[in-house]
């Protein structure tokens, strides 16, 4: 399972990645989770099964969803509360839910 996160510079999402990795390990998931800046997304999306977008760049969500459709993967915005509190568990579960849809 490959979870890709993106925000403006890929910095704050990388904070969340750490928490999510710890959570995934606890859950016994074999997951690759990484964060990139939105400018690099094209170079990474082919390796991803799901793309989660930081809420501060939600003005990009429409175009990223389009890209997701092209690649056949779900693209969604991360809940702002989970994002702000760096709630790795909720975000991993959110990703799982999107993948099982």
């Amino acid at each position, binding site marked *: 399972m490959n979870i890709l996160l993106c*925000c*403006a510079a890929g*910095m*704050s999402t990388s*904070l969340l990645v750490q928490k999510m990795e710890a959570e995934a390990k606890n859950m016994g998931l074999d997951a690759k989770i990484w964060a990139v800046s939105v*400018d690099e997304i094209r170079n990474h999306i082919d390796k991803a099964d799901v793309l989660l977008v*930081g*809420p*501060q*760049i*939600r*003005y*990009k969500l*429409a*175009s990223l969803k389009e890209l997701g459709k092209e690649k056949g993967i779900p693209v969604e915005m991360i809940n*702002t*509360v989970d*994002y*702000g*509190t*760096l709630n790795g568990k909720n975000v991993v579960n959110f990703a799982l839910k999107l993948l099982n849809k």
Partner: protein
Amino acid sequence: MDRFIAAFEEKVMPVAGKISEQKHLKAIRDGIILAMPFIIVGSVFLILGFLPIPGYNEFMARTFGEKWLTKLLYPVGVTFDLMAVFVSVGVAYRLAENYKVDAISAGAISLASFLLVTPFKVMFTPEGAKQAVEVGGAIPAALMGSKGMFVAMIMAIISTEIYRKIIQKGIVIKMPAGVPPAVSKSFVALIPTAAVITVTWVIRLGFEMTSWGDMHNFITKVLSGPLSILGASLFGAVGSELLVQLFWSVGLHGANLVSGVMGPIWLQLMDQNRAVFQANPGAQLPNVVTQQFFDNFIHIGGSGATLSLVVLLLTVARSKQLKSLGRLSIGAGIFNINEPITFGMPIVLNPIMIIPFVLSPIAIVIISYIAMSTGLVARPAGIAVPWTTPPVISGYLATGGKISGAVLQIVNFFVTMAIYYPFVKMWDKKKVEEEKMSEEAA
């Protein structure tokens, strides 16, 4: 208040979407990114050239010879001084990519058209002579840097637009029957290049007939000159910062959106400072407002100057939730990342916290602007210090090794702390009450 915020969000979102998705603005932003690693590497050489250590110059001269500085700064000539070339290729490449046409061809054609509007001559003053003479057959290095950047951007857009229109329309040359298809195909590939070069050539000839003489002169006078005066002013700085904070108040990445438009202007202002600094590090630098002005001196702890806010959470907050938020966000805050604060506290859509979140950075924009324009504090020296560099260090480096830069950051930190203080107390009180209620309920 909630209704007001909802209405604001409804108005702001489409604008944000347009700024970030408009094809040409996006290409300019992405194209400039191509130049950034070079500029940062060039900055490292600049810092090494002007380390403010007593006896450093003498030591370097003894070790590497009298010409050490000139030699050390060779890389600056292919980093800062080629900014327009990178932008020319980068913008065209990204725009072509967006149109799904061959990007590398578009980049090459863009570079050719940028150079085609640039007269290949330089002014040269021979030793002993009083007047400069014009020397032909030389690419003017001065126009390959930030001075030529706006022309490079404009030509990248014009050339790529022509290129992709011709490709997308599928214009073909009809060959008489009997000509092998491969031959006619090879002619078709020439059409876009021929069209762009011809149009650019006409542009060049057109400018030669005017009193401006060439496109660079024209763009400097009517576009980049006025824009940089606006960008460099206190009014421009406060206006930009206000927009950044208003976007962030509804949870949109304001710094990214605003620099998407202001980026080229700030970059040019920064490079003007760099050129003067490089020639004489003790000289008065022309501009206060550059990218580093915002990144290093205003966004201390992230947009909204929230590092002081985090420290308040750690020291004066009594709510458990806010205390733990303080601990969670201090590490990232030192490196100027503050999403845990903006979304976690939250500041976003929170009427109490939005007030100091907007006021703090505006206050320190004004303080920093006055401190730097009166010469009390050194101006940013055009050294590209990454925005994730912790304060104090970044202020010292960005000013080319001046203590006053670090001191200003400390002053700014305490000013914002004073502005945040009453609001943090208010929010903390509310949180403590909430926590008490939920404890009693449990």
